[in-house]
């Protein structure tokens, strides 16, 4: 663990930062210092995030179009299945845009989590050679996925114009909703990337988990459908933080209604509890990452 004491005056004019490196132990002071240190690495976060985006599209012919292609192609598949094969009640909205509004934040969530989980393991050569706060690695993948999300949002705007979906001021709720999801995905990314160092099983099992998770979240169907679940399962279902995020994103953006604050509150509460816990766990694991990676 590292503690950086604010700049100390030494021998007159020269100002140097004194740093102490000690065995890992928990202290509030230590956590504050770690967070302060993270802010000093803002430039690295910037460069690395930019790098992630650039590398992803550098050698692909379609470039940034891929950010749109992913939710768009999923939208086509689900539209075919759920509006023709199995009818799904969408409160009157066309199914294509209904599912796209769900897939948009979901793609952000799953892309961020998939790439961030592998972030420590895929940077072995950096981690064993250079020091920087390791949480920067999963963080930059979340930022890159967020960038994709913003690109794909433009497609949503086009679809909303095409389907003549009226925009209300409730759409502004989308900002805090996405913020809640970002907090949640950050927490998950910190936990999974740290566990992945010890057990590569995480990376192997994650695609399966995400698949199941997507169907346990109202992405391709409305939340009201989930009410048909047996009561105990339904309670469990509502504890999924992604439920409040996806459902309310759709409510505010597509239906123009105000968010449903109970489910959003559950998401917020879980995210706010999880993030500090995830951060502490990550920093604890960080101390031994270079030893066992």
């Amino acid at each position, binding site marked *: 663990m590292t503690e950086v004491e604010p700049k100390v005056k030494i021998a007159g004019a020269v100002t140097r930062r004194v*740093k102490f*490196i*000690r065995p890992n132990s928990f202290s509030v002071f230590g956590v504050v210092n770690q967070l302060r240190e993270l802010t000093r690495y803002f430039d690295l976060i910037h460069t690395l995030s930019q790098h992630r985006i650039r590398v992803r599209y550098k050698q692909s012919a379609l470039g940034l179009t891929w950010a749109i292609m992913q939710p768009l192609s999923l939208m086509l598949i689900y539209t075919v299945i759920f509006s023709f094969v199995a009818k799904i009640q969408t409160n009157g909205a066309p199914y294509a845009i209904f599912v796209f509004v769900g897939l948009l934040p979901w793609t952000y969530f799953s892309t961020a989590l998939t790439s961030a989980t592998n972030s420590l393991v895929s940077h072995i050569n950096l981690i064993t050679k250079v020091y920087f706060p390791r949480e920067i690695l999963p963080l930059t993948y979340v930022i890159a996925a967020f960038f994709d999300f913003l690109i794909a949002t433009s497609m949503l705007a086009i679809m909303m114009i095409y389907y003549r979906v009226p925009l209300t001021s409730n759409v502004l709720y989308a900002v805090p909703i996405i913020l809640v999801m970002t907090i949640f995905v950050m927490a998950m990314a910190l936990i999974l990337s740290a566990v992945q160092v010890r057990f590569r099983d995480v990376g192997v099992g994650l695609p399966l988990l995400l698949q199941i998770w997507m169907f346990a979240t109202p992405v391709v169907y409305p939340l009201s459908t989930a009410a048909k679940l047996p009561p105990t399962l339904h309670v469990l279902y509502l504890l999924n933080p992604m439920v409040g995020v996806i459902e309310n994103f759709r409510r505010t953006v597509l239906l123009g209604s105000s968010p449903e604050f109970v489910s959003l509150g559950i998401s917020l509460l879980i995210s706010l509890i999880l993030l500090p816990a995830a951060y502490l766990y990550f920093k604890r694991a960080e101390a031994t990452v270079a*030893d066992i990676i």
Partner: protein
Amino acid sequence: MIDLRFDSVSKKYLIRQEEEDDPKARSLAGRLRRLWQRPREFWAVRNVSFEVHRGEALGIIGHNGAGKSTVLKLLANIVTPSQGEIMINGQLAALIEVGSGFHQELTGRENVYLSGSILGMRRNEITRKLDSIIEFSGIREFIDTPVKRYSSGMFVRLGFSIAAHLDPDILLLDEVLAVGDAAFQSKCLERVNDLRRGGKTILFISHDLGAVERLCDRVLLMQRGEVIASGSPAEVIDQYKHSAATSFTSSFQGMGAVREWPDAQTAPGDGIVRLRKVRARTEEGETAAVFDIRRPIGVEMTYEVLEPGHVLIPNYYFFNQEQQLLFYAQDLEPDSRGQSRPAGQYVSTAWIPGNFLINGSILVAANITSDISVVAHHFHVREAVAFNVVDSFDGDSTRGDYTGPIGGLIRPRLNWTTQFRETHTANECVLEGESA
């Protein structure tokens, strides 16, 4: 003013045994059980304390596995200490491996930004120094080419160039000077000397005793995770050379200057001949792990011939630390060549002349073959012994008075002959040219 302080620092690694050969361990139950096993402890650094004053250049020497690199990694904050405290006063930069954080798909210029920020530079700082970095690297015309098209030399040049522009208060160096061609190496060394003259604090970890002696004010000697000596470079390097012979752990993990097989049944070999001992020795007959480059080195094998009547050819392969084959040598002496041998114990020694090898670690593979139409190996011990060759820079080794890095696999001192004939002066040459 103290810039660096190690206060009773220890680093423990936990090693989990991987018994992949055992089918039981590979089963799911075996894997799960292993999670509960207590891992084995390994102390890479044990109770190390030292201080480095501002502007001082401290060298750390010792064999591989002595804990030098762990000290460096602890300082660079790459690994966390298990005990003790490290104090760092000022901005620290570690040149542990150049080109860290390069991405193949990005251009040289983009990689300067990427690698620079990973090493702790600010973006505007990189922009300011970009021109100088490109200039130093000497690859301006390729700077907008993806680095995957670079040669390894170009890669390293750009990497070092970024690192050389870090401008830290404290600099950690780990063998990084062994990169690029000779011209670039001297440029790097010059840069390090500049930093040193500029009053930077330097910590230098190297196998190159000559470089350590030239660069450092003070040297620590490490062995098995502990600091066993500290003092002036000449003193400590001398102690290293002498102590090394008796407690050589070798650059090659677990290999020493002598290897013995006490049990004849399990010794390498077959029913005809078995190897019992291999060692590196001096002319005086002492087993040694470190040799002065000017002295002959004897590589001796003791073997037992069990079945008489075979023609046996002892031979060696010599490798360097990069596992490159340096040369092959076999016994061609008339009294053993083509002669079938009676049963009994033999001791054969191959002599490498002084001023023949280069400084560094040498690894020896020991073999005995039979000279029949199909060459038969009686034994082939790939990693029999290892020893270090050191160049003391006294001016009478092949390097003469030059103290910089020299490439090559071997460095024999050859006999030179020169013929001299007096020629015309420059003016006469011109005249001659005109008349022709």
